[in-house]
């Protein structure tokens, strides 16, 4: 059973559920997950919250055969979001070995796993074309 933690899920609800990152007021870098010190210019506590885009392009991907999950392969992709920011999420609703670098995807809100009686919701991505069907 994957680790989960009610304090973590509560503390991070805006980051994890609403998918908010932060934008540095000094250098403009958009970053996720949220940190107190800027990735690029190291200024401290000087951010605006920013709602990340729900669409983007695949920067890279893999299909995992080694995961302790029932449905293999498990697709994983790094997605550069429209409007800035990058997330690393599971791939869903398609053949994970058929996705391509540069492909347009959208984020969808799904149950990631259930443990300790908690539904652990997070974001996955799927090809935009699939959504039209």
């Amino acid at each position, binding site marked *: *059973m*994957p*680790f*989960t*933690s009610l304090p*973590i*899920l509560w503390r*991070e609800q805006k980051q*994890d559920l609403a998918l908010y990152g932060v934008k540095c007021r000094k250098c403009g*870098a*958009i*970053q*996720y*997950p949220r940190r107190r010190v800027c*990735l*690029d210019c190291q200024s401290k506590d000087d951010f605006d919250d920013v709602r990340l885009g729900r669409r983007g392009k695949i*920067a*890279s*991907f*893999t*299909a*995992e*055969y*080694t*995961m*302790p*999950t029932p449905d293999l*392969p*498990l697709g*994983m992709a*790094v997605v*550069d979001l429209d409007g*800035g*920011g*990058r*997330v*690393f999420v*599971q791939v869903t609703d398609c053949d*994970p*070995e058929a996705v391509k*670098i540069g492909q347009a995807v959208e984020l969808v809100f799904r149950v*990631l*796993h259930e*443990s300790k009686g908690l539904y*652990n*919701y*997070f974001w996955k991505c799927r090809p935009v074309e699939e959504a039209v069907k």
Partner: protein
Amino acid sequence: MNSIRDKVAVIGVGCSRFGENFDLSYEDMIVDATYEAYKDAGIDPKDIQAAWLGTVNPEIGSLADPLRLFDIPITRVENYCASGLDAFRNGCLAVASGMYDIALVVGAEKMRDSPPNDTLVASVYHHSHPLLNKGMSYIGFFGMCANVYREKYGLSEETLARVAVKSHHNGALNPRAFFQREIDVKTVMDSPMMAHPLRLLHCAPVTDGAAAAIITRKELAKNFRNDYVLVKGLGMSVSTGFNINFNPNYDFLTFRSTQIAAKSAYEQAGIKDPRKEISFAEVHDCFSITEILNYENLGFCGPGEGKRFIDEGVASLEGDLPVNPSGGLKSFGHPIGASGVRMIYEITKQLQGKCGPRQVKNAKLGLAHNLGGTGIAVGVTILGNQ
């Protein structure tokens, strides 16, 4: 900044059997490696004034208990997969300070008391953040690197397979390796897919092992042996965190930690052109794509040229710059904390000309490269004969 160059000498090394050591405990392997190193240096356990242990497993790592090495300072070092070389670095700095005359550095890990897929992959999946990185594994991470490399530079399945073929060739000549047999390109390409596009035989196996080194100040080294080996450079850089996959600046081809650690080590050693001046290297080949990226990040060749390093045989045992003459992680496996110190063992033996059929020609400067996590932490160590 000062340089460590020619201040510290390696006077003895030891290496346990690497493999599925079901008959050996963590402690047994530490004893095997360390007592071989004691004997190699011609010293008594009582001569050790301080010790460092590179290990990642938080529960079992102790050096004092198996060696009955009490009443001296012993420090455990954990720095992801680079723990071994970082333990060596810390030991060298302490000896160079003059605080200790003789110190022991050990790297050790027990991986196979659990089934292989119950260790790293499952522990990251089960014990990491409840949501972020869920589904991340090291092989998947390097698979994503391989997919970008293929897209940007082109990379045939044959070339990728040849990295593993080369390692197995060298491992077949090494009586200490876990895999001591040759494989061919087709066998690699027919092996099961693990994380697209990496297959089983692109991966270093999960093994147990330990390695040890005895170090002293250069001025004292000749009291122990004539063919001691000198530390020429110690580089270390932590250039990203665990969340590298969320970093928009990351290009999947460049490990800054390798570049910065190498630059620092080259400067200390006075190396201007590593491709010409380094005689041979032991690099962190956890997966075949990683070895190709290592050539580029270490400055052995330019971006996108690493595949030619393999195709043209430059990195083979008979090539201009042999890489992983020991057989590498591919042949030894990667008992996490042990690997960096095992590289020190190989480089020392090569510089002393004691490697038999896998001996490289004109071994003057050897480089060890130990890459931690998703390129998070990298150690680069350069050793040379006098």
